[in-house]
């Protein structure tokens, strides 16, 4: 039977740091298959805290996060098998070559030799890094590292791709390629959930958006519902400036 559960469902998620500082407060949102979901907010608004909890990196006690119907808290392995995550500043192993790193990730996901080769070729060519894959990651620029991280995230065909500020550091062509890949993934029934500060990108790329301010979702919905003819920038600034 086909799974009809949303690909990502966050229900009442909350996270408190130290002596009562609320980094996330009753965050709830739903990402359906085929969605490109933009998560926007100021610096320190709680975007990364939420994203890290979604991908099972950050422990949390309040609320529930489900990926394709599996609980991140109770069944993290099932969630991770169908998710790909790229942090804002990917820390890869500097002393591995690009191809060694990709093979490591492919081994983790149990991808066969011919399948992985085809994926490596496809995505490395798209991001124009094939020629550099034999070099040590330590010798790569920030953008190159990000491209390797992106290729590694795509090779296991994730149902949900979670990205934290994916366009920072990418050259214009790579940014365009990534947007194309996002569209392609969504056409095939996967979903993308990403945080960004670049409102123009979010407006053009996403079909759904949530705005987070001081750990609380202040607006969420389809782009049309949210903007009602105005620009996303206007909606965002109006929302975050409200006391």
């Amino acid at each position, binding site marked *: 039977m086909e799974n009809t559960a949303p690909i990502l469902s966050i229900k009442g998620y909350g996270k408190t*740091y*130290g*002596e009562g*500082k609320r*980094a996330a407060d009753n965050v709830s949102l739903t990402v359906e298959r085929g969605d490109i979901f933009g998560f926007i907010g100021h610096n*320190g608004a709680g975007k990364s805290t939420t994203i*890290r909890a979604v*991908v*099972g*990196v*950050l*422990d*949390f006690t309040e609320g529930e996060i489900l990926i394709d119907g599996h609980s991140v808290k109770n069944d*993290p*392995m099932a969630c*991770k*098998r169908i*998710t790909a*995550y790229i*942090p804002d500043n*990917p*820390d*890869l*192993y*500097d*002393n*591995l*070559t690009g191809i*060694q*790193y990709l093979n*490591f*990730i492919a*081994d*983790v*996901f149990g991808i066969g030799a011919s399948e992985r080769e085809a994926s490596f070729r496809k995505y490395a060519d798209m991001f124009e890094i094939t020629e550099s894959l*034999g*070099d*040590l990651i*330590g*010798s790569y620029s920030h953008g190159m590292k990000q491209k390797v991280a992106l290729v590694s995230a795509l090779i296991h065909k994730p149902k949900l791709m979670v990205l934290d500020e994916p366009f920072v550091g990418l050259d214009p062509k790579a940014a365009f390629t990534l947007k194309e890949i996002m569209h392609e993934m969504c056409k095939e029934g996967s979903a993308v959930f990403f945080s960004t500060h670049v409102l123009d990108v979010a407006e053009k790329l996403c079909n759904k958006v949530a705005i987070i301010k001081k750990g609380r979702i202040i607006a969420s919905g389809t782009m049309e519902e949210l903007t009602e003819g105005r620009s996303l920038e206007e909606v965002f600034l109006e929302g975050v400036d409200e006391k």
Partner: protein
Amino acid sequence: MKSKSPVLLKALLLSTSLFNKYKYCKDKKKKGKIAGGCIAYFFLYAMLVFYAFATCVGYGRLGIIETVPGICALTISLLSFLFTFFKTNGYLFNFKEYDMLMALPFSPSTVAACKFSYMYIKSLPMYLVISLSVMAGYGMYAKPGFMTYPLWILLSLFVPVIPMLIAAFIGFLITKVSAGFKLKKLVQTILTFVFVIFCFSLRFMIEGIFRNDKVEDVLTAAAEGIDKACGIYLPAGWFTAAVTKSSLSDSLLLVGISLVLFELVFLIVGKNYRQINSALSSHDASGDYHMTSQKAGSVVNAVAFKEFRRMMGSTNYLVNVGMGVILAAIFGIVVLIFGFENVIQKVTQNAPLDGEMLIPAIPFIIYFFIGMMSTAACSPSLEGKNYWIVQSLPIDKKVLYRGKMLFNMYLTLPFSVFSTLCLCISAHVSPVGTVLALVLGIALCAFSTAWGCVCGIRFIKLEWENEIEVIKQGKATMIYMFPNMFINMGLIVLMVVLGKMLDHNLLTAGMILIVTLLAALSYLRAMSLAKKS
């Protein structure tokens, strides 16, 4: 997911493999450095082989070769325990690729177990070099049966496992407790200090237990001491029984308990892994700062303050550079309470030394602790990926390194003065002698700072995965620490010998001149290296 462990372990090993780096590195200068590092390792291992073998020859000639397997097991156990304990925070917890690994389909216990196995495999060559050298020496003198050799080789792989697991588990408990506090790093540092100081005291407590026996013969005493230690620390006893009596049951006990303990430890650690790492990676931010009046300061002081914040932000850094000064202060207080003479008798195990003889060596005794580590030796490398900040700022490199040196002086000087004063008061040193001892202590701090800075700049390593690589295992730290420590021990002896022939004040004054000259030369060298860097 257990089947994924080899995949992760392989990636972890490959990511720090010098061979892999050499093979794919295109920079000839870097390749040369890697080759140089390998040669340095070769010499280090050659020294270990020589030392371990020479020890066996000594024991063989003294006719107590039967104690050698026990000594071997105890030495490896102690080394593996200490090395693992100091590496737990940084390798097992709070490592930088935590997010990347935990987002992959690995269970927390798999990640923790692989990280532990990585530590084990990386340190195994050192333990094997010691063990197999001792085995060769033991074979030469004890002429054991054939079965001893395969058993020795096999069990050498397991001897470090239990102490490493115990150290990792204690590290885990400390991290777990401190993760519950707002000031996690401070609590973690304090608990680590307390545990290390407890371990130091334990040495004297255990020694006290052995002393109760009235054994007249020194050699018999040593042999019985090792037997007792093997009786207290059972795995060493199992190893000894296995290799000397070819005991299968003892071999199975060592292997079996190691494996069971491994499973048990990582079952417990795995259950708490995400919670602890989440707590460690979360930073409490009050967000309620209000702009107040600010103060302008000198660049050198600004760099020194930056170094202070860097130290306070890292448990590993704080424990490593703070251990010496804290121990110096504790030693000073202990001497003040129990008396110089009594403490010296206890530490030197009733050697024919009296307090008077050791008075000229007081500044060097204190320097043994104070000079253990110099922040200036590892702080250049600790800049790591942040090096661009100081590189892009309009700071002369000389000023930058002066700031780093100033911080080491701020850190060591008060402790040196305090501890030297405590010892001088307790030993009833004359006022002139006390002043001279204080000045010599200050000169030694200056030397430690400048020499540390020379090593730090000369062997700077900005590319590292984990700060432990530069704090504990960096070339700069090693080259600063070991000659400094051994020469200082020699100087303590020299001061005692010269103190019998010369006036103490004259001797100390002479030393002040020599140490000041060495400090000045080191400072000039550091400045010259800074200019070139």
